């Protein structure tokens, strides 16, 4: 395949990753990395570096829309970013020392874990509503609980953030994987916020999208300084992703929360299955 064809294919893939990434609250790295290693035959480290650029583009493009339209919980994002940026630094330094085989294995395990956690019940309107009872003292002190505006039914939903400490811990782990694998870590953050912290699905997607850019920026600069960022690939990814987030964020805002959540569960299950099959038949997951 000549270079020009590869660049055009990459831009198209980045567009699709941008649509999916902004709809699901993830960076799209889980789509872009396998595409680059399998279809374009790039080395995993170049693919990771390029994917991190795509993650920042997805985050900046989609999050700007979600922040403007009051879907993002900014305080929750700032709180969890403390954990995820620390994790990302550790992950990025660690990642460059680890053999590629272990990168593959880690990636597979992360995907399987997230698939099992998320493919469960669909979100109901009741789950979006405010619950009575004791609010976690930390959530209260930090004012984490919030409201979001749902365009689907024109409703304003007040919600409470539960288990902030556990969410903080999971974000740190998500940050490590982000640095290690060149992904946004959204597929860990969205289930963590939605299922563990009980944040409504659409607010979780928007908040995750907002956070992944910061986490990825920390890792991306390290990969850039290692000379692993190819500016041509980076440019195609940025242009493709940015266009894709226009479509994806619009679709997500209009969608039913239960559909977004169901799409997310499908995405995780598909990802997990694909990895099992590849591991079983070829010994490499990607």
């Amino acid at each position, binding site marked *: 395949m000549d270079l020009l064809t590869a660049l055009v294919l990459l831009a198209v893939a980045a567009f699709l990753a941008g649509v999916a990434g902004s709809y699901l609250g993830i960076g799209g790295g889980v789509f872009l990395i396998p595409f680059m290693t399998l279809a374009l035959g790039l080395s995993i480290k170049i693919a990771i570096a390029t994917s991190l*650029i795509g993650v920042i583009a997805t985050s*900046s493009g989609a999050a700007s829309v979600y922040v403007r339209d009051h879907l993002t919980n900014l305080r929750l994002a700032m709180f969890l970013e*403390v954990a995820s940026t620390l994790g990302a630094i550790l992950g*990025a330094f660690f990642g460059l020392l680890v053999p590629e085989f272990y990168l593959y294995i880690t990636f597979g395990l992360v995907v399987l874990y997230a698939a099992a956690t998320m493919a469960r019940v669909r979100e109901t309107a009741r789950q979006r509503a405010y619950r009575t009872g004791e609010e976690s003292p930390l959530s209260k002190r930090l004012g984490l609980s919030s409201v979001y505006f749902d365009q689907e039914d024109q409703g304003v939903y007040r919600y409470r953030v539960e288990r902030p400490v556990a969410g903080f811990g999971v974000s740190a782990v998500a940050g490590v994987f982000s640095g290690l694998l060149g992904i946004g870590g959204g597929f860990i953050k969205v289930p963590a916020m939605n299922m563990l912290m009980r944040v409504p699905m659409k607010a979780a997607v928007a908040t995750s999208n907002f956070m992944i850019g910061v986490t990825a920026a*920390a890792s991306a600069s390290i990969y850039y*300084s290692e000379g692993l960022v190819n*500016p*041509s690939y980076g440019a195609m990814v940025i*242009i493709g992703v940015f266009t894709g987030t226009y479509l994806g964020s619009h679709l997500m805002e209009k969608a039913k929360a239960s559909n977004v959540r169901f799409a997310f569960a499908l995405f995780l299950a598909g990802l997990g299955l694909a990895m099992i099959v590849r591991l079983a038949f070829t010994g490499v997951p990607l």
Partner: protein
Amino acid sequence: MIGARSGLRLVQDRIATLRRAVVTEVEDRNRLIYHVLRGGVVISVGVLLFGFVLLAATGGEVPDHSIAPRSLIGQLSRFSPDGYLSLGVLVLIFTPVVRVFLSVLSFIDERDSKYALMTAIVLVNLITSLLVLA
């Protein structure tokens, strides 16, 4: 003499003013973040497109490695396509950093010390990883 009804209206007006102030404050922070994120990507895409135009004009090779920040200025002044493509990528990498920096300022401005501190920690983490660049 102020009647009960006009007194009630005064209180209602006062509450409405306060509510508007709160909404505006949140609104301002949201707008600022929106403009920084959107602006960063738009500038990045603009610089990248300019790089591709230069590439087409000079008929050079598509670059396969990034330019280190310290040699970037020289490349830019010579209108090298490689330099502009690298700059576009760097602008994008820096967009979330600028967003975090402005968030620190906005929390300080609101005298929200807890969140100013948290955001400052995030900024320190980011700068730690950016220092590797230098």
